[in-house]
């Protein structure tokens, strides 16, 4: 077991973890933040995407011990004081989700990307979300939502 500490959605946590514990399992099972989903075992689907020190990462690709000292943001931290983040509003308004399983990771990937590129084109959004798979929406409304969120955040 190894002692780690990290800030998740603004709250500092300290915990003992097995060295093999994946960050996503730490978040889901030890912190009981189950909004971040696990959709595969090959770092392919992106359902578990979170922000680590502001960068989007697949939390199944990071060991919890590697996140020692990091500042982590998950879907549960997107809204502040009950106000939805523009990406949440946009996904709702543009029907950017159906079953909703990929949605937390998709939104976190989008938030990370819009931080790097606040005014993307449609093609840029499509490329930026390449690491996040959705089986319900055909991505059409997800892309619209990310573009709408970019507009909203820029205005």
């Amino acid at each position, binding site marked *: 077991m190894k002692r780690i500490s990290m800030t998740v959605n603004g709250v500092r946590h300290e915990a003992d973890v097995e060295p093999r514990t994946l960050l996503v399992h730490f978040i889901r099972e030890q912190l009981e933040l189950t909004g971040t989903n696990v959709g595969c075992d090959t770092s392919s689907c992106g359902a578990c995407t979170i922000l680590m020190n502001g960068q989007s990462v697949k939390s199944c690709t990071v060991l919890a011990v590697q996140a020692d000292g990091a500042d982590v943001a998950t879907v549960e931290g997107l809204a502040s004081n009950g106000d939805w983040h523009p990406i949440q509003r946009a996904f709702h308004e543009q029907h950017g989700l159906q079953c909703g399983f990929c949605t937390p990771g998709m939104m976190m990937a989008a938030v990370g990307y819009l931080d790097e590129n606040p005014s993307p084109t449609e093609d840029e959004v499509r490329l930026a979300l390449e690491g*996040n*798979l959705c089986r*319900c929406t055909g991505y059409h409304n997800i892309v619209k939502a990310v573009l709408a969120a970019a507009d909203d955040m820029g205005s």
Partner: protein
Amino acid sequence: MATAEKYVGGGVPRKEDPKLLTGQGQFLEGLTLPGMLHAALVRSPHGSARINSVDVSAAAAAEGVVVAYSGADLADEWAAGLPMAWPVTDDIRIPDHWPVAQDVARYVGDAVAVVVATSRNAALDAAELVEVEYGVQEAVVDVEAALADDAPRVHESFDDNKSYTWALTNGDVDAAFAKADVVVSERYTQPRLIPNAMEPRAVVAQSVPSTGDFTVWSTTQIPHVAKVLFALTLGIPEGQIRVIAPTDVGGGFGSKLNVYAEEALCIALARRLGRPVKWVAGRSEGYLATIHGRDQIQQIEIAATSDGDILGYRVNIAAAMGAYLQLVAPGVPLLGAFLYCGCYGGEAYHFECTGVFTNTTPTDAYRGAGRPEATYAIERAIDALAREVGVDPAEIRRRNFLPAGDMVQSPGGLAFDSADYEPALDRALELLDYDGFRSDQAERREGGGSRQIGVGFSSYVEICGLAPSQVLASLKYAAGGWDAATVRMLPTGKAEVVTGSSPHGQGHVTSWSQIAADALGIPYEDVTVLHGDTHVAPHGMNTYGSRSLAVAGVAVHNACDRVVDKARGLAAHLLEVAPEDLEYEAGTFSVKGVPDRTKSMPELAFAAWTAHSLPEDSEPGLEASCVYDPPNFTFPFGTHVAVVEVDTDTGAVDLVRYIAVDDCGPVINPVIVDGQVHGGVAQGIAAALYEEATYAEDGTLETSSMVNYLVPSAAEFPSFETDRTVTPSTSNPMGVKGIGEAGTIGSAPAVINAIVDALSHLGVTDVPMPASPERVWRAIQAAQGGEA
């Protein structure tokens, strides 16, 4: 307060979203119960192998492990094998299918042992310690190879690998072919596909040993059907099983329309151990242990006049069942059996299908189930006919469309409601600017560059809402075609809708709220929809086959009408007039000619609850139920158009435009309908261009994870262009049809037809799915007479 606002037809944002957008989705992996144990399965790495011995002792002794069992250890748990509910012929061969194999493992992934531990990691670690001695046998993985005389047998107890042959003939097929000027004869392969719902399957089973009651949470599309089948498989009285499909199930596409080994196994383990048992599939494990789709070889012949008027059809299908028969697998080809003539006419039709065992993961219904395969074959073949007779592909479709009308007789044997196929084609051509496209294409060809463009059409008709129950009986489908709803006005004036559908992304909570809010005249926000828990919604036939709106949604509509009827009696009583003296609009009854004498639905709900003054023949409460058994299938249709750019040097295909004009009748929520089309279209395009599950000869699944099975991302698609025509179904009072699978049904042939069109000047007439750059390049080389 009554509201005049109409919700049906409007794109109200979904009620399902807030929890899913904030990380509060209630997916099953998040469920933990006190004392819960975790199961991990040991699966055969061989396509076909005798199980000579299973030694679980090392696993059982590992840290955290409670118990480990072989298939033989569990044999007395099963009152019956895993269920198969669609024995399509009287002489179909149905193999035993035990949740854990006992003597022979018949595909890579067939469970041979289970380890139960206090944590998932402990169970997975210990599963590695189970020692299985296999006697490896020759496997057969290809559907045609499995039909060869000397093929290894998947089931030794059968003479060969055929499960069944099912045939259908309408009219004099030989005569139609005898008088034909042209016959096109095509052979197509439907690659095996992996459904890939984003949420992996999971199950939690809990027993109460003192009462013998069980609660089973499963990521299922069919909680009610599963309840019946769990009872039969495990020998548990049905009334003592409660099945819960969680509020949020992360997609299905048919992959959760089944009764799986792991569900039965967790129930059996909970029964033995008296503790809750949970199993969650890893994605790669799911690739082995969750049903696959398609995997058919199709032969289709069309007989026609020299003008391209179709006279007859001959179709022969070999359909892989996999190693066992999953829940409705034999019937999947039958769902397409009537549709190999598409939306076209003709005098005669013959269809024949053989279901074939192979040493592969069982197949079953994957989005569209039989109809995408049928539509692919006819829409590719009609293009072949167009080339043969020198008629434009849009024109040959128009020329052969069945006439517009209701209950139009199709050569396939069904009568199609709400047929009107030309307007959808016309609209698609208009959106495309067909003439403009052909002139661009001619310019490109004259330019002679390596980037050529093509357009492909697909005009489909499909069948939704499997019904009525009597017709399902004639097809030997062992379930009904009905669904159920209860609508209940609550004392506070709000309403509760209890539905037998079991949504997993389709937005039923939103759509059913729209239907009920309009019918009851209350705000959309005041409607609650309950689903998925057999204790809450006791009756249902669940969600598959694009049936939910056309069956369960109509049940909601009808139940609302019955609530209004009952409310009318109460209103008349309270207002001291005859019921026929009342007018009803938007949730308010008013006395004809005395518009200020009214009773609103919330007032009546409260009065019905207090029951202080009721009509003589009336009981307290204001609720009604409907079990709706539709009189017929519904028949959505449409025309889809794909535009591709193909690099003739590399074979790379770029999908440039995708136009979908669908007719699903009146629309409850256009935003949701568009979303269904987008997702369906994406899955069909994925089949056309990217996805294919392949097996090595020894039965190893080569595409064993998301790394090498190509689920496309946003970068692989353009934005889609959608439009609709609206031709109401006459089979139900709402006129609705179904849209969940139309996109998948229409799209794959449009894409492949477009690729062939782009390369037609090079002599290319066929590119198999998925049209990888290599396959496209080889098709070009072959057509040019080069190395291929």
